[in-house]
């Protein structure tokens, strides 16, 4: 049975992405007790699945390394992975929270030596790489994974493979009898930082995401460009493994659309501008990018970044929402539409089409097991009555990483305000 020390002066942070980690760390480094709950078997969330950040083109794992070091050095944070909050009762200053813990089948004895991974034969879809590749059913999600412990996929429990994993472990770290459990803990304040998910591309049927292999999403493209992704960083198109050198980026795939997401997701313009750098990086002048857009939303100093990309002769911009993607005889996706600046109709064949999918909250306001206010897109809104549950990061708005971290830092203070009040009362 997992035991957690938590009181009404404890801050519960739900979601271990960069927003959740930030909120937890800022609070803990201010001397507060924190419980950090993450549904994945590792911390870091979506940012660690990105190859680079705009506008610096630096690597998300760099920031993650620092945050993990802060975390390892801080005894005030208790981390629960494979955990989901299933219920919240009570009120500001005195919440009681139930958390469902899924079995990992690997205990803290694990040294990440990798023997179980070698022993297991079954391969499963690699979720970390958006299922673009396969991994063993006993795996470490990524080299940066924290906790640095293997995970055994439930699918092999009860099979000889599971026994192989157990037999391979010299440290008695594999526990096949691991059971799902629900624990309950106290918290004075809660920071809800469950982040975002890309809009379901298959719903934009005229782009054929689920019909055409060479129509992929912006998040998948990040994995293709990443040297530690399924293609070793080579931009190969799924249909035939051919190098994709002529790439189309379709903006507002789902966003700014009352049939899909009514809001603007803010990050996707910069995301695609960034991804044109990947094409340039891999193929130089042989790489061509075309961005189909309605408005390029490169806000504040990001404008510099936009201007630089615009100056690149290998990147072209078409002010047009692509109307339909078809496939030509060679399996090239063809973008059909009308360039609204002067009304030129086009049918452009590309090697690969990347949909700049919009952002929607992973857990919509109504699905949160507590009273929170949320907007029409399901993002958490600040409660004027100021209860003890605060949104952070992309659970509150479509934000880029930088703004998500600001939001999370603010959320940490709001939570601290509550527990400090509790402390003063209990003192």
């Amino acid at each position, binding site marked *: 049975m997992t035991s957690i020390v938590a009181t009404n002066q404890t801050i519960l942070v739900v979601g271990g992405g960069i927003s959740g980690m930030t909120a937890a760390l800022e609070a803990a480094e201010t001397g507060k007790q924190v419980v950090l709950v993450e549904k994945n078997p590792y911390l870091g969330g979506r940012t660690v699945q990105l190859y680079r950040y705009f506008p610096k083109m630096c690597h998300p794992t760099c920031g993650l390394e620092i945050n993990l070091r802060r975390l390892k050095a801080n005894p005030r944070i208790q981390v629960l992975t494979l955990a989901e909050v299933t219920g919240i009762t009570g009120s500001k200053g005195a919440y009681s929270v139930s958390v469902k813990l899924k079995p990992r089948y690997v205990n803290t004895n694990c040294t990440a030596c990798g023997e179980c991974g070698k022993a297991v034969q079954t391969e499963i879809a690699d979720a970390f790489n958006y299922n673009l590749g396969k991994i063993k059913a006993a795996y470490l999600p990524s080299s940066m994974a924290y906790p640095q412990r293997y995970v055994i996929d439930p699918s092999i429990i009860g099979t000889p493979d599971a026994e192989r994993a157990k037999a391979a472990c010299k440290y008695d770290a594999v526990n096949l009898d691991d059971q799902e459990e629900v624990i309950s803990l106290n918290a004075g304040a809660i920071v809800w930082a469950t982040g975002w998910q890309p809009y379901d591309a298959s719903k934009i*049927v*005229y782009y054929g995401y689920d*019909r055409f292999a060479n129509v992929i999403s912006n998040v998948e493209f990040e994995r293709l460009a990443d040297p530690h992704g399924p293609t070793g960083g080579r931009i190969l198109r799924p249909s035939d493994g051919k190098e994709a050198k002529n790439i189309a980026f379709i903006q507002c795939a789902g966003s700014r659309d009352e049939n899909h997401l009514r809001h603007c997701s803010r990050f996707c313009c910069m995301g695609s501008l960034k991804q044109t750098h990947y094409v340039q990086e891999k193929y130089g002048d042989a790489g061509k990018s075309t961005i189909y857009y309605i408005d390029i939303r490169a806000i504040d100093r990001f404008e510099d970044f936009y201007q630089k990309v615009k100056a690149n002769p290998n990147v072209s911009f078409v002010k047009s929402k692509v109307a339909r993607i*078809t*496939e030509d005889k060679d399996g090239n996706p063809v973008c059909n539409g009308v360039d609204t600046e002067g009304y030129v109709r086009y049918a452009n064949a590309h090697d690969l089409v990347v949909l700049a999918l919009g952002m929607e909250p992973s857990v919509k306001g109504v699905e949160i097991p507590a009273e929170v206010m949320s907007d029409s897109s399901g993002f958490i809104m600040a409660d004027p009555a100021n209860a003890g549950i605060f949104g952070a990061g992309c659970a509150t708005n479509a934000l880029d990483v930088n703004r998500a971290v600001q939001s999370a830092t603010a959320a940490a203070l709001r939570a601290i305000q509550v527990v400090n009040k509790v402390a003063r009362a209990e003192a």
Partner: protein
Amino acid sequence: MARKEYAFYPGCSSQKGASASNYLVSVESMCKTLDIKMTEIPDWNCCGASISYAEAGELPRHVMNARNFALAETNLPGQDIVATCAACWLGARESKERLEHSSGLMADTQTALKEAGLAIKVIPEVRHMVEVLIEDLGYDELKKPVKKPLQGMKFAGYVGCQTNRPFGIAGESFENPMYLDKLIETVGGEAVKYDQKVTCCGGALAFSEPEKAQGQIKDIIEAAYDGGAEMIVTPCPLCQANVEVYQGQINKRYGTKFDIPVLYYSQLMTLAYGGSAKDAGLNGNVVRARKLEEFAGK
């Protein structure tokens, strides 16, 4: 007593001797098998169809449909109106929505109806034959009466526009609706994959600007052939006519050798239910569906 009863709105094209008369024939046979009672709305009138947009004003168009509502409501109380023609269904449904959403429009409509001695209390539901089949009966029910599955026959399910947009069939996507393929499979046929399932046949432009429309029709038929289809199936009279009757002209214009039968789902079902070529109105097909005629003969 039939298990289902509806107020039938066949529409101008589905009348005897009209361009979709074979649709009517096959629908009647199909409904007979399925024990669906369709009572024609007495003295129903034309829906106006989309094409009348330029001449007909807003109100006159709605009034035409309103008259049918009133007639259905008074003569066949409590029954949904069922149309077999896409345009009729669309026109009537549009009018229903607009009238129900604008009290002003409704008031004017009533005033006009009074001139014909009619009035509307509640506008009945306006449904497409396909909705009745799928929602009120369901694929399983439709499968039961199948006596002669259309084994090994390849069809391109051509949904077209107006049975699909803007209303469409509940739960289906505008860009890739599956119900027609499911109907084909329900009667034992094979639904081929092709990318022109919802492409427009040119609609009324087939009359006014044939050269423009026929280009689109050509694309549709080509795709169907590429997909390996032997026949095309559709739920829409205008689609049926456009795709079928211009094949000769298209062959002239583009040097193609099109000769592909274009059928209604109701014709397939009638045959699968053991109906004769006549029951299925196969004689009404300009491009003869010989394979089906033989099949029906066996």
